[in-house]
């Protein structure tokens, strides 16, 4: 069989606007939710970009320098990722690609309806578009797997224990890294504990945090102000020499928060604040 990519490319190229337009119309009729969610402008952009890439790609698809096809694949993969971020289901994304057939086949039918070569043309387009459709699925699965792994990792990281150490005093010992999602969980757990036990003081112990930079400091300040808004005082303990040096050198101002070097000092202060004594 002789290579028919060049011929197909020129047919598609001649009918480029017609294809884009009819593809878009298919989507509006068949994938309403998708169009609704990503907007008509975006749909228009997608149909145009992919049509153009396809027209280029079919020319060289059988050669070793099929750079244009690689580019098309990359484009489709990117699209799939973007769609999954926007809550488009994988089926809808795949359909989005498949509907280009409904735009191309009638055009081939019109021009080559009587010619037996049309069968080859259709098979040719079919195999490319099917591959692209499957690719969207594969990318979707990969991104899901990535997400699951990330969540598992995050789950290991984010468990935040809260201990009620004394009447009116809760302790949150932090171990590991403190990023923004973990800070969020830490704050939720801390506030729940304060609310449930009506504790007046929360001690956040950061002895187990290896690196305290300005970002971590900002998270701690946020947590402290959250406790304050609820009506509890927040102490931060475990500020070692190294940490205090770093913070001052970075210009981080923690002066609004009571800080102590050791947890023991913090606990003592907390007892004083709640007017309690160790007997």
């Amino acid at each position, binding site marked *: 069989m002789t290579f028919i990519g060049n011929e197909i490319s020129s047919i598609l190229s001649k009918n480029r606007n017609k294809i884009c337009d009819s593809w878009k119309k298919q989507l*509006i009729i068949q994938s*309403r*939710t998708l169009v*609704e969610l990503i907007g*008509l402008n975006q749909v228009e952009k997608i149909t145009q970009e992919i049509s153009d890439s396809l027209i280029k790609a079919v020319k060289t698809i059988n050669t070793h320098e099929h750079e244009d096809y690689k580019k098309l694949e990359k484009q489709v993969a990117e699209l799939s990722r973007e769609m999954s971020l926007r*809550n488009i*289901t994988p*089926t809808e994304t795949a359909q989005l690609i498949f509907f280009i057939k409904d735009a191309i086949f009638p055009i081939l039918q019109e021009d080559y309806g009587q010619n037996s070569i049309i069968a080859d043309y259709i098979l040719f387009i079919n195999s490319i578009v099917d591959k692209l459709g499957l690719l969207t699925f594969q990318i979707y699965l990969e991104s899901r797997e990535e997400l699951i792994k990330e969540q598992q990792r995050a789950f290991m990281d984010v468990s935040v224990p809260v201990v009620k150490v004394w009447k009116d005093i809760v302790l949150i010992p932090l171990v590991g890294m403190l990023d923004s999602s973990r800070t969020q969980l830490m704050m*939720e757990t801390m506030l729940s504990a304060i609310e449930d036990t009506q504790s007046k003081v929360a001690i956040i112990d950061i002895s187990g945090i290896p690196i305290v930079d300005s970002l971590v400091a900002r998270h701690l300040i946020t947590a402290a102000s959250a406790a304050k808004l609820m009506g509890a005082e927040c102490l931060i303990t475990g500020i070692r020499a190294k940490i205090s040096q770093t913070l001052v050198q970075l210009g981080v101002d923690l002066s609004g928060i009571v800080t102590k070097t050791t947890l023991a000092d913090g606990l003592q202060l907390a007892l004083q604040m709640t007017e309690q004594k160790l007997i």
Partner: protein
Amino acid sequence: MEKYQDSRDSGQGQSVSTTIFVASYEDVIVARQKVRELMNEMKFSLLDQTRVVTAVSELSRNIIVHAGKGEMTIIKYDESGRRGFRCIFEDKGPGIADIDLAMREGYSTTNSLGLGLSGSKKLCKNFSIQSTRGKGTRIEIAEWK
């Protein structure tokens, strides 16, 4: 913008939409209650509810303060693979001259705290804004389970 929204009223789409008018401070409360009810029904957590309803409060107040009146449309999606809703705040007010500036924390044209837009954006995972000077403003937020 082209209208393709009709599909959701035709009964063929899987989404259900409700529109309420926002023209008074009492309507802000109604808007809040509507979103609260929906989120409660869809079993969003209390924290999610508080977060989003606060944003709804800011955005519907913005309509009143800047445009006098407008509307909020809630579109609910309840199908396998996609549960959640979108909330669209539309007005035909003066529009925003410089969206980037308006989105900045602390920027205000009305001596408020300037947290309405910037704050809502921080509260909502999906936030988009379109505005044309003299034509109006359209802000959309979306929450998915």
